């Protein structure tokens, strides 16, 4: 019996051919044509089927009709060999080209590392969801544990027992303070403009356009100033912290600190957290001011409200509690961004792609926790009548 398994016809050269022939001494796998990766290759399934159903316990190869071959043929024979081993069928490779036999020997020289392979098995869908959930919960635990470590380091710093280089903190302050001015100005101004536009359209209908100033003032100072600054800093500084520390992890610079008895938390994380802790309230106050200016620009341009009247009305609407609340929020958000960035950097793997993943994770973690914190603040401020 001869079962031919023809491939699609190719335009260049003879197409690769694969056939199985049953002979009294066993199965003969006939190989012919030009076996190239770029060709349409014959299916292996009929051969495997034949191997499973045949009562014959020996396989040989006939490659006399073979005109050329590359890894595509190697992969095919490798699969057949593997299946032969599983089915305990004797395999004779004498009929294969010498080079192919040598490559097969090479691929089989090192035994398969079963343990290593087991680690990359893909979980099923439910297990994946469960794993993700546990990962998220574990992430909260990691965040809190890391925050605890930073608090201990801060305590040691305040007692004069922990040290870091002043220049590192100065650089971090410069990076997350002065250098962030441009983007914070732009975004805050535009948020002020957007708030004013949204309010103006509605309030004009009631002839209450002046209250746009109240809306923008209260909105910016209580929430939007802190929130937008925090989101900008999460994308800008949090990601930068994660990338810096992640790269240091990859290049073993963090290991070098650890094995020298210098705590990376004290030396690398603490100055960054302190820098953002100090800069965020200042950036927030600046963002509030620029945002109100944005609103005033809309008031002046669209609603015929003078700058002075707009600012007066906005000031009138603000309370001290609101202003302090906004600044407190910004400070907390700043710590969240710094801790998330440093945590993801310290958790970074040992490859360049892991650095990118750490930066992404830092931004996502930072923003998620900022929004969660914002919700918690809303409840607390409501209870405190702020």
């Amino acid at each position, binding site marked *: 019996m001869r079962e031919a398994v023809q491939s699609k016809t190719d335009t260049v050269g003879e197409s690769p051919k694969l056939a199985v022939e049953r002979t009294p001494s066993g199965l003969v796998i006939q190989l012919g044509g030009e076996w190239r990766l770029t060709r349409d290759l014959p299916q292996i399934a009929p051969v495997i089927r034949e191997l499973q159903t045949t009562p014959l316990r020996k396989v040989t190869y006939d490659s006399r009709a073979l005109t050329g071959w590359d890894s595509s043929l190697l992969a095919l024979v490798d699969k057949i060999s593997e299946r032969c081993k599983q089915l305990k069928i004797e395999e004779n490779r004498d009929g294969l080209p010498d080079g192919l036999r040598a490559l097969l020997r090479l691929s089989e020289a090192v035994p398969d590392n079963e343990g290593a392979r087991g680690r990359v098995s893909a979980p099923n869908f439910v297990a994946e969801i469960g794993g993700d959930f546990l990962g998220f919960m574990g992430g909260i635990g990691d965040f809190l544990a890391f925050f605890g470590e930073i608090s201990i380091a801060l305590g040691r710093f305040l007692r004069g027992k922990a040290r870091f280089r002043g220049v590192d903190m100065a650089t971090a302050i410069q990076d997350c303070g002065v250098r962030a001015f441009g983007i914070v100005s732009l975004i805050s101004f535009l948020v002020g403009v957007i708030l004013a536009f949204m309010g103006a359209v509605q309030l004009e209908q009631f002839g209450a356009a002046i209250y746009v100033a109240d809306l923008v003032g209260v909105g910016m100072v209580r929430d939007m100033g802190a929130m937008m600054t925090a989101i900008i800093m999460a994308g800008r500084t949090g990601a930068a912290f994660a990338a810096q520390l992640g790269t*240091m992890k990859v290049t073993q610079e963090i*290991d*070098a600190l650890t094995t020298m008895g210098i705590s990376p938390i004290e030396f690398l994380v603490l100055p960054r957290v302190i820098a953002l802790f100090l800069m965020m309230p200042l950036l927030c106050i600046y963002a509030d001011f620029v945002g109100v200016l944005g609103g005033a620009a809309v008031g002046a341009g669209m609603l015929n409200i003078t700058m002075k009247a707009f600012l007066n009305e906005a000031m009138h609407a603000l309370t001290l509690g609101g202003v302090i609340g906004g600044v407190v929020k910004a400070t907390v958000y700043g710590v969240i961004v710094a801790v998330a960035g440093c945590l993801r950097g310290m958790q970074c793997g040992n490859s360049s792609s892991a650095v990118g993943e750490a930066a992404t994770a830092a931004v996502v973690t930072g923003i998620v926790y900022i929004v969660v914190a914002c919700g918690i603040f809303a409840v607390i401020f409501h209870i405190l009548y702020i």
Partner: protein
Amino acid sequence: MAYGDFVVMRDLNFTVNRGEIFVIMGPSGCGKSTLLRHLIGLNEPARGEVWYGDVNFTQADPIARRRMVRHFGVLYQSGALWSSMTLAENIGLPLEEFTDLTRDQINEMASLKLSLVGLKGFENYYPSQISGGMQKRAGLARAIALDPHVLFFDEPSAGLDPISSRLLDDLILELRDSLGATVVVVTHELASIFTIGDNSVFLDPGTHTMGALGNPKDLLDHCDNPIVHRFLSRGDSQNPDAAPDKGNQAAAAKAAPSSVRSNG
């Protein structure tokens, strides 16, 4: 040693004697660097303990551990210099942290350590401004900044040309003799193994345990483990003149299972 369920090595049990150069050898991917990371506390063993003298390093609390690692000097594969600091600052940092030396004294000390590794005059260079081989030597200067009791080298010859590699071997021997330090070297460079190794352990990736323990030259002559013999004889045939120049100090295996004991 394990990563999750995957066991890298089991039943490791060896002693490193004070003042000897101990080589951790084996084929690529067998777990040499992982073992080193366990010895210096960067990884925790799944089971077993690491001892330094009479102190259990694995069980030590973080503060005791930090005190102990100050007596370690580690040269990483890539040098692992802190990229935001100059070479002088890299070497000065441990001095600044753990000594009361003045700034001038620290700078002098940094220059001295750099001159020991042939990098005098490079004090104000950043790591990115020097070659890989120089970074490695600067990493060595940093590793010996605090005159460590135990020096660890992770693949010291990786990425170096044969001459630089040989010079680094000579430097390791000189540092051991002059500082009186115990040296642990992870390498698969056979020329280095025979040149500097007093004692060695061979990690067998097939059985996931120690393939052999002893002086590399003795192992070549007498070890009956075919994998160890094949590994070492390839090197010997490439370097027929290579022979250990230090006396054999036999390693003493300890009774505790899965333990690594260093008497450094």
